[in-house]
C-alpha cells in the first residue's frame, strides 16, 4: 500500500517536472519576443542579454497600432484564415469520410494524387497558379488567397479527417442505418459528433497554416488594402532599416487572434466525447 502511494507520488512529481521543462522550452522564445517588443530601441543591444530591460516602453505597440496599416493586415489575415479553415474543414471532412467508409474505384489513385500535391515545393506552382487566377480576377484578392489555401490544405486535412473517422467504430452507424437512418443522417447525427475533437483540431491546424502563409500572399497580392499579416511583417525588413522593437511588437500582437481561436476550440479537444460510446 505504501509502496503504491510512493509510486504514485513519483509519477506525479515526474509529470510536473517534465511538463515544466517543456513549458519553459515552449514559452521562453515567446517571452523573448515580448521582452524585445517592450525594450526601448537604444537599450536593444547594450542590454541585449539581460532577462528584463532597465526601462520598459509601450511605444512600439502604439506605433504599430496607430501609425502602420497593421490593424488592416490583421483583419485581412483573420478573414483569410477563418475562411480557409471553414472551407477546408468542410471539404476535407466530406472527402475524409469517403476515404474512411467506402471502397470505390480509383481510391488508391486519388489518395496518391492527394499525397502528390504535398510533395512538390509550392515555389514551383506559384507562377502557373498566378496565370490561372489572373483571368478569373482572383489575383490581388482575399478570395483568391482563400481558394489557393483551401486547395493546398485540403489533402492534408482529408488524411487527418480520415484517420479521425477511422477511429469511430462502424457498428455505430450501421446500427443507426438498420434503425432506418439514411447514411447521411447517420453521418450527421452519430459520426460527426464523435469526430468533433478531430474536426476542431483540423480547424485549428488549417487556421494557423493560413495565418502564417507568406509566399502566396506575397506573390498574389499587390494592393496595400489586401496585404496579410506575414507580408506586413516582411515589409518591416525590406522597406525601412529593420525596426526590431516594432516588428516584435507586431509579431506579439499577431499571436492574439491565434490564441483566441485555440482557446475557443480547446474545450472540444479535451473532452473525452467518445468515452464509453461503444460497449463490448
Amino acid at each position: 500500500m505504501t509502496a503504491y502511494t510512493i509510486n504514485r507520488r513519483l509519477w506525479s512529481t515526474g509529470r510536473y517536472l517534465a511538463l515544466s521543462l517543456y513549458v519553459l522550452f515552449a514559452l521562453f522564445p515567446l517571452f523573448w519576443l515580448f521582452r524585445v517588443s517592450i525594450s526601448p530601441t537604444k537599450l536593444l543591444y547594450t542590454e541585449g542579454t539581460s532577462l528584463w530591460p532597465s526601462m520598459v516602453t509601450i511605444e512600439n505597440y502604439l506605433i504599430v497600432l496607430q501609425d502602420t496599416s497593421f490593424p488592416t493586415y490583421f483583419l485581412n489575415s483573420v478573414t483569410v484564415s477563418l475562411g480557409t479553415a471553414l472551407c477546408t474543414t468542410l471539404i476535407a471532412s466530406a472527402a475524409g469520410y469517403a476515404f474512411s467508409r467506402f471502397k470505390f474505384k480509383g481510391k488508391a489513385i486519388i489518395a496518391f494524387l492527394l499525397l502528390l500535391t504535398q510533395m512538390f515545393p509550392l515555389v514551383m506552382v506559384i507562377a502557373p497558379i498566378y496565370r490561372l487566377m489572373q483571368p478569373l480576377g482572383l489575383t490581388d484578392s482575399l478570395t483568391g488567397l482563400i481558394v489557393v489555401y483551401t486547395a493546398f490544405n485540403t489533402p492534408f486535412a482529408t488524411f487527418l479527417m480520415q484517420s479521425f473517422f477511422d477511429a469511430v467504430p462502424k457498428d455505430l452507424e450501421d446500427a443507426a442505418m438498420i434503425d432506418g437512418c439514411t447514411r447521411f443522417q447517420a453521418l450527421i447525427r452519430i459520426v460527426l459528433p464523435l469526430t468533433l475533437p478531430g474536426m476542431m483540431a483540423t480547424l485549428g491546424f488549417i487556421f494557423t497554416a493560413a495565418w502564417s502563409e507568406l509566399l502566396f500572399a506575397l506573390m498574389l497580392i499587390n494592393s496595400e488594402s489586401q496585404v496579410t499579416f506575414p507580408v506586413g511583417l516582411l515589409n518591416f525588413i525590406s522597406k525601412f532599416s529593420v525596426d526590431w522593437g516594432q516588428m516584435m511588437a507586431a509579431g506579439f500582437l499577431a499571436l492574439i487572434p491565434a490564441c483566441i481561436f485555440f482557446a475557443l476550440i480547446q474545450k472540444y479537444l479535451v473532452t473525452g466525447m467518445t468515452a464509453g460510446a461503444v460497449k463490448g
Partner: protein
Amino acid sequence: MSSSASTSGPVISSGLTPPPTTHRKRSFKRLAEPYFYLSPALMLLALVMILPLVVGLSYAYQNIELLNPFDRGWVGFKHFIALESDRVFWLALKNTFVWTFGSLGLQFIFGLGLALLLNQAFYGRKLIQALVLLPWAVPTFLSGLNWAWLFNPVISPIPHWLAALGILNEPYNILADPELAIIGPIVANVWFGIPFFAITLMAGLQSIPKDLYEAAVIDGATLWQQFTRITLPLLAPIIAITLLLRTVWIANFADLIVVMTNGGPANSSQTIASYIFSTAYKKLDFGYASAVATVLLLLLIIYAALLFGMRKKLLENSGN
C-alpha cells in the same frame, strides 16, 4: 460487391429484397455516393493544384531564366544531367535527410510524450495545455526571425547559458558555424512542430474507449503493457498518417532555413527545399529549380511507397 459500404454491407442488405428498379437505382446511388462526398475536394484540387503542378514539372525540361529571357525553349534532360556535377545539390540532399528526420523524430517523440502527459487529469491541466500549444500559433516566418535572434550572443542569453553548461566552448552564434548551423533551424522546427503531434495524438487518445484500460488494470497490466498493447496499436493509424504527411511537409519546408541561415554559411545548412527557393527566386532560374524539385518529388514518392509497403507487411504479419 466492391462498391458497397466497406464493412458490414451485407448485413444491411441481407434482410431486404427490393423490386428490381429500386435495386438498380440503389446500386447506382451506392456507386456514386463516395464520389459525391469527394467531388468538392477533387474539383478544387484538379484545377488549383494538379494542373499547376503539371505545368511546374514541365519547367524542368525547359530553359526558363528570367535574367536571360531570349534563351528560352525545350532542353530535354539538360538540367538533370547538370545536377550530377552540382556539388551544392548533393550537399543539400544530405542535409535534407538530417533536417527532415532530425526534426521529425524529435517532434514526434516529444509530441507523443506531451500528449500522454496531458491525457490524464491533473491540477492545472487546462492552463498547461493552452500554454504548450502556443508555439504552433506563431507564424513560421516570425519564429524563424525570433530564433535567429535567440542564437545571437549579443542580443540573447541562450548562447551564454549553453556555454555555462559546457555545451558550447564559448558563447558564439552557432548559425555562423558551418558544422552546427543546421541545428539552429532544426531546434526552431522542433519547437514549432511539437504541438502538432501533441494535438493530433491527444485527439486520437481521446477516442480510445476508457473501458479498455479499466479491463487491462483488472487483468493486472502494468502501465508499460497498457501503452504497448492498447495505446500504440490503436494510435497506429493516426501515427502512420501524421508521420508520412509531416515528412513530406518538412522536406518541403524552407521558411525557417531561408530566414535563419539562408542555407549558409557556405551552403552548410542548405536543404533541397531552400536550394529550390534560392535557385528560383534569387537566381531566377525556374528550369533548374524545377529539375531539383522533381528529384525531391521522386524521393518522396519512393519514401511513401516504402512506408505503405511496410504498413501492408505489418498488417499481414499481425494475422488479419
